[in-house]
């Protein structure tokens, strides 16, 4: 019961004093690398408790997380919660729901576009959303200041269709069962099945989900940054006084020894999060990815086959977190052609599609954003013509990013590849 939980005394002790029967966090060397905070509550409950307590104590002024909408509670949308009650067991917030109605990276960008919030705001987002946000920050579309980013080792999300026809709720038990075994439910989006980056990078706090057999009863929070540790520190309701549960070092020294976020956030995944389950899932998803990429219809014929049924709604662009331009070139005057243009094309080819620029739009968008494509899959999800946009974009993204040894969302201090260069490189390109 949350009410009880709040009244529990804070049992913060040094990390070194963790009882030995717990593996994972406790098996680490006593000094600096201790980041796993083991809690004897389920992951869902832990999240609720943590967020509720953060709001209640005023440590954060708001929490961006998924929540139910509508009276029937049928819909799911991200919301900016300020009322701690939303995170009670019967509250509307559902922070860990495997569903992505929009890429929260875009939402965080919208929130912080005009500057960081005056008081901290927490956000519970998925690894790909986090990567997207890092890219957006690099593109000057948001700010990391005063944000507490909480993410989890992701078991994928369900396609939007499942949220519409109400199957989402029914599938959840299956989903969590699979996640516990470090597996993926086969109904999650193909993009997720093939996701190579399901372990969050740059999160202040990471909730371990994949392969956590006991995630209904206990969970581990990895405090990757000083910021993350500082926020969790003092959350009374989390570390319980039940035997065998680790808690965070309360002394400042212990906290300070955690990896610092100075000079930008960096990935500080330590060995303990790279569990066997995660590694297994990694290789499984790699196989999926290869199969998925191999299935892309390539060549001009392939493009026309794939994008022939495109209705030109540009929804893929609208939901794409990286496509932040307020006025896309393909919606601009540059793409509003005169009748003479169409007549010229008609003379040349004998026939011309109206509206034009179907494949041009896709290739042009690739040219503009593929170096930053995080492979979140929103584009496929939202496509009313069921075009596997994301598969194609990921495939190209991976290839193009490899050219520049770049990984979107890896490091906020890393320059965007098209904004930087090395004098001695790519000599083979110029002839």
């Amino acid at each position: 019961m949350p009410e009880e939980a709040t009244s529990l005394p804070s049992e913060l002790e040094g990390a070194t004093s963790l009882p030995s029967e717990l593996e994972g966090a406790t098996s680490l060397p006593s000094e600096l690398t201790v980041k796993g905070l083991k809690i004897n509550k389920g992951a869902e409950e832990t999240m609720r408790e943590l967020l509720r307590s953060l709001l209640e104590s005023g440590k954060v002024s708001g929490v961006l997380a998924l929540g139910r909408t509508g009276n029937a509670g049928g819909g799911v949308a991200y919301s900016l919660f300020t009322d701690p009650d939303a995170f009670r067991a019967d509250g509307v917030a559902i922070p860990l729901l495997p569903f992505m109605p929009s890429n929260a990276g875009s939402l965080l960008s919208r929130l912080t576009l005009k500057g960081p919030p005056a008081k901290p705001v927490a956000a519970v987002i998925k690894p790909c959303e986090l990567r997207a946000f890092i890219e957006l920050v690099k593109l000057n579309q948001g700010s990391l200041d005063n944000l507490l980013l909480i993410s989890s080792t992701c078991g994928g999300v369900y396609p939007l269709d499942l949220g519409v026809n109400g199957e989402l709720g029914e599938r959840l038990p299956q989903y969590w069962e699979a996640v516990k075994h470090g597996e993926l439910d086969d109904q999650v989006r193909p993009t997720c099945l093939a996701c190579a980056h399901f372990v969050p990078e740059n999160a202040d706090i990471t909730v371990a989900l994949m392969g956590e057999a006991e995630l209904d009863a206990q969970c581990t929070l990895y405090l990757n940054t000083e910021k993350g540790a500082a926020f969790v520190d003092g959350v009374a309701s989390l570390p319980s006084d039940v035997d065998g549960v680790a808690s965070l070092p309360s002394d400042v020294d212990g906290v300070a020894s955690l990896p610092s976020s100075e000079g930008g956030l960096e990935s500080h995944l330590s060995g303990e999060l790279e569990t066997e389950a995660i590694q297994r899932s990694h290789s499984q998803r790699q196989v999926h990815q290869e199969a998925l990429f191999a299935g892309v219809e390539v060549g001009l014929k392939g493009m026309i086959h794939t994008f022939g049924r495109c209705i030109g709604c540009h929804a893929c662009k609208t939901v794409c977190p990286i496509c932040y331009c307020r006025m896309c070139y393909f919606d601009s005057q540059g793409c509003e052609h005169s009748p003479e243009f169409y007549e010229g094309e008609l003379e040349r080819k004998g026939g011309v599609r109206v509206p034009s620029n179907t494949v041009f739009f896709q290739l042009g968008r690739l040219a503009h954003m593929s170096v930053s494509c995080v492979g979140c899959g929103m584009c496929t999800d939202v496509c009313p013509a069921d075009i596997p946009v994301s598969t194609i974009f990921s495939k190209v993204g991976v290839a193009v990013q490899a050219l520049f040894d770049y990984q979107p969302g890896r490091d906020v201090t890393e320059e965007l590849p098209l904004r930087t260069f090395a004098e001695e490189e790519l000599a083979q390109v110029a002839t």
Partner: protein
Amino acid sequence: MNDKDTTRHQAKRNTVLDPPCGALLPAEDGIEAAFVGWLKEALNRNIFDALLIPVEVPAEDSFAYLLLQDAAILESASPLPPVMPVQGGKAISRLTMRGNGNKRIAVVVRPCEARAAVELVKLKQAHLDNLWLITMDCPGALLLSDYLEDPAAGAARFAKAYADRRHPSEWDREPMRPVCQICNHFSLRQAPVSDLHIGTLGSSDGAVFIIPASPKGERILEDMDMPVDAALDSWAEQVEEAEQTQTERRRQAHTELRETITGPERLMDVFSNCINCHNCQRACPMCYCRQCYFESAALKLPPENYLARAEHKGALRFSPDTLLFHIGRASHMILSCVSCGACEDACPMDIPIAQVFSLLADRAQETLGYVAGGSLEEPLPLVAYEMDELHQVEQPYVEIYHKQEVQDA
């Protein structure tokens, strides 16, 4: 003012077309084939220079508007495809937004697409001078998502539902999109905005009517050496009958719909799944703005604003403008809404947006005495006004408050 009144009334009177006669097009081998053959002949005889018509895409899983002048491409053309992937009005607008071209182009569209084109002309987003609009009695279209699941099966479903093209009472509207099921502008009579209309209703075996609806259309039939001498009584009769049933269906559906959407509680249930992708706006032929207000800087606010609103409500849905977007969009385009259903086709969350908008459109257009796409002459309702109208929205002034104020003072 008198002048204005007369023109408006004339415009309104003109909106029911009753040409006494049409031409007959033999169609022993199927209506589509006959129609396409006729178009091919017209193209070969240089009656038009080019055609804008839905053509099956190479993957054979959908249709796209293609501007063509090579008659060979017409083989894969479909004058009445089972789906409406791109609203034809939008295609016309893309083609002619910068002015009339030099080529004479015949455009084959559904009636709702022709009405959208007319609205777009009034909104200065299209030019029809060098276009010939050709429409057909339309049974509706399938939901795009349903069709794409299995295009071949979809095409078969569409063909079956529309097997008897001559009797609307035989049309099975069940497989069609909800907004098509309640469409009462499926023919030309109430919105004679095309130049030629293919009347399948009430036609006899082995022939369909080609009905001239404008002097431009008459000239084409003349040039094609087609005598305009077939009486249209049976067509008019069938259309009128179907219009009545459809109008009744529409009224009933709208009454039922109102029950399910009115009030903030129910309304927010309708929009609870919305993901703010604005795809309805993107697909809508009337939403022509290059930069939509709802994607503009006007709604990009500092974090304190969002947090303050969240504080006030306990939480703030994010992105925060779901309802504002839908009502606001309605306030921008609803008077031109032709209930074409493009929005619903494009919605990834299956929100019955076209149905809601068709209800809003009917009522708003009724309030302002306007029919979207009804005629080129009638001015847009927010551009025109009458001095003596709509007094019901003016709040009458009652002196009672005056007295109170004096007492207070």
